[in-house]
């Protein structure tokens, strides 16, 4: 019987002379404490899965509602950078697992090396992610309402059907057959894009889109080229089948690599749907990577203080579990956004 303490309550929990220093007062032995920590971490990881689960669910719903948006918008993500990041994270998972094994075998020097490598992997991931985000911002693909600023207020933004001027619906009939590729429209395009996208905008033919009366909004012929149809509404409310959406393949052929995404008049409406879910999911994942870096740094400090050994490495083990789940979530995010 190793745990029968004769101390009375007046002494509290300050006299555990027969305990290892890392054993808290309410545990009988280190094994019990280790197992509890492990169970707690697995439960926490279950909450993480549910947290991201909500977002994955949202992703499924909107990909189902707006398939054309996802097919088109995905091309603006840089697959090379995404794939590089995937490799970086998988490698950092390897070094983390290696570190845990090192701790179990009491190879503290190896543990230090592996934690440093893992930390560098996390940092590399975030740096690459930073360049990806800033590139998107540069192209005008901000998260949120920025997509909707009216032309004039912001240089190269395109107006959505919802913000069409009042009374536009009267012209619906003429819009149906408007020759959207007319030179006048191209000029209009340049005017709307203002100074931010100078004459480098390529000459292209604009796919004729039909706007059904059901969407309730259209513009006079002269402005037609700047207007895109709203995509299908929410499930159950939508007028989806009535809208003629250019086929995704056509869009792909038509999309020159150097074109600013928001200057492509053939882009499907509601493109923000893709990018907002992208920012939400990768952003939340990025926050988790930052938390992971804090945890690994804390583990490193404790390792350098000599607090871990093959006798006690619970925090390394638990931190490793967390890091693997962060990696795992990215492994789902990468194909869902980059490889559509």
């Amino acid at each position, binding site marked *: 019987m190793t745990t029968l303490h004769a101390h009375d309550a007046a002494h509290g929990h300050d006299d555990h002379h027969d305990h290892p220093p890392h054993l808290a007062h309410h545990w009988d032995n280190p094994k019990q404490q280790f197992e*509890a920590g492990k169970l707690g971490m697995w439960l926490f990881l279950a909450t993480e899965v549910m947290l991201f689960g909500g977002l994955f669910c949202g992703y499924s719903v909107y990909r189902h509602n707006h398939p054309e948006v996802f097919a088109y918008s995905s091309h603006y993500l840089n697959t090379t950078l995404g794939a590089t990041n995937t490799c970086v994270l998988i490698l950092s998972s390897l070094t983390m697992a290696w570190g845990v094994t090192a701790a179990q075998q009491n190879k503290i020097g190896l543990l230090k090396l592996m934690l440093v490598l893992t930390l560098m992997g996390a940092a590399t991931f975030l740096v690459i992610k930073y360049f990806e985000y800033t590139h998107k911002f540069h192209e005008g693909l901000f998260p949120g309402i920025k997509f909707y600023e009216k032309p004039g207020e912001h240089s190269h933004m395109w107006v959505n059907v919802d913000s069409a001027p009042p009374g536009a619906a009267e012209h619906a009939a003429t819009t149906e057959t408007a020759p959207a590729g007319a030179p006048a429209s191209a000029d209009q395009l340049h005017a709307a894009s203002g100074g931010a996208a100078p004459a480098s905008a390529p000459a292209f033919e604009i796919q004729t889109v039909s706007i059904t009366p059901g969407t309730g909004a259209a513009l006079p012929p002269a402005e037609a080229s700047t207007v895109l149809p709203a995509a299908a509404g929410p499930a159950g409310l939508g007028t989806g089948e009535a809208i003629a959406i250019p086929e995704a393949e056509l869009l792909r052929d038509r999309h020159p690599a150097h074109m600013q995404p928001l200057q492509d008049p053939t882009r499907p409406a509601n493109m923000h749907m893709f990018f907002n879910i992208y920012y939400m999911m990768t952003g939340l994942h990025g926050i988790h990577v930052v938390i992971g870096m804090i945890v690994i740094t804390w583990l490193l400090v404790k390792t350098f203080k000599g607090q871990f050994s093959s006798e006690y490495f619970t925090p390394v083990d638990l931190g490793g579990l967390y890091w693997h789940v962060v990696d795992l979530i990215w492994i789902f995010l990468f194909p869902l956004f980059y490889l559509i």
Partner: protein
Amino acid sequence: MTTLDISKPLHPTIGEDNYLTHTRGILSWLFTLDHKRIGVNYLVCVLTSFFFGGMFALLVRTELLTPGKTIVEQDAYNQFFTLHGAIMVFLVIIPSIPAALGNFVLPIMLGAKDVAFPRLNLMSWWLWVTGAVFFVGSLFTGGLDTGWTFYTPYSIDKGSAMGGAVSALMGVFILGFSSIFTGLNFIVTIHRLRPPGMTWFRMPLFLWAIYSTAILQVLATPVIGITVALLMFERTFGIGIFDPKLGGDPVLYQHFFWFYSHPAVYIMILPGMGIISELIAVHSHKHIFGYRFIAFSSVAIAIFSFLVWGHHMFTSGQSPLMNAMFSAITFSVAIPSAVKVFNWVATMYKGSISLNTPMLYAMAFLFIFSIGGLTGLHLGTLAVDIHLHDTYFVVAHFHYVMMGSALIAMIGGLHHWWPKMTGKMYNENLGRLACALVFIGFNVTFFTQFFLGTKGGTRRSWDYLPEFQVYHIISTIGSYILAIGFFLTAGYLIHSLFRGKKAPANPWGGRSLEWQCASPPPHDNFATTPTVGDCYDFSTVEWDEKQGTFVVHGEGQPSPAHSHH
């Protein structure tokens, strides 16, 4: 061997040192790692919130005394019912039983010194406080008038919904993590800190209920976390996920919201059911009837709770097939609920019932919960729900379950464990009187609303047709009786802290481990890990006139104490 004689209090130093006097100073409470003090901290916070939530309820009821304006205009009224609902749900009922009473009782029932992760436990409480601050912050950032459900598109419309929504949503997000960590802590505690001899089927039923609740807290709460986070971004940046103007789907918000908030209903009621199992067995001095059925019915309710969220959305335009499926699964929740009620009644049958205050609350629960549960079947029936949707019938139904059942159970449990927590006895006769007032006041308030609802009285309305006034007047009078009952309760409980008789270790004749340590318990609860037998075997419990407490006769326990060391 750690077998010990539980006929004697386990701790030799009763009266000299207990968790209340162990250390002194306000900081020793704010940063305590002792589960008992954290439980008391929660209790103080929850009861304070209960006071404010109740005040908003009285303002709502008073405003509804006459059609049109009685005391305030529409906008203020909208804030009153929103704050009443939001405070009562997020700050009072969800944390009340698990975080306040559960924190205090659970480790002691297990014979443990503390919960598995004491620091995480303290963090949960601080998260609760932070969340509550954000909630209050909504009052200073423009007010909150969305209803506690934050339905889109109203809640994302900056033109009409008030500005406090973001602050309140942040509060919900933080409170969610408080709840998650409490649940996580309890699951690990129950798995890893049960004493030798306490197998799963020897645990007090309160622990089964807390365990089932904790599973819901861990698995459902993250979803409300991400939902309110998306809603915050939607309102601040316009990401379009829930906004129909930007191509989003407001009904998706309802799915997300109820995927958490329906399990949350069971996060509220399951611990209450656990308390009732304890109260009825202890105060009937009779072995609980159908132990395994009650235990498994808690788990069954927890599982069902994930599959019925759509019954909040019968009129949202979801497909008839989904409606039919959600309706059918909703009906099946009645099975485990009824299993519990029948087993409680069977436990009372031929028991030696002491009509103590906690027992009176337990009996009030049986009556009120039966009505609340059965009216749930009306609402689960598709055709009837179309008629009753958004009427006072719904209000009456969920108050019968959430207030009349979950909160009544919490108040009953508070009376049951009050002597253990404070070491003081309250005035029993005042307790019975207050219980009667609460019971009468509650039923006058809310039974009336069933009639009001079936006649078409719409909920959340500031104005109403003159023919509904008689129901509103009766309901408001009932709410005043209810308030008197609660103020009386607060009065004699606070009085007992200063003038109450000293409580014995075992005032009710309980058999579970918390009654085997002193009142109030010492800092470490038990000097050694105790061994346990059948916590519902009351045949050996007898009143000892000399010591003024119940004692358990017979040495040791029948169970061989297989030491796990």
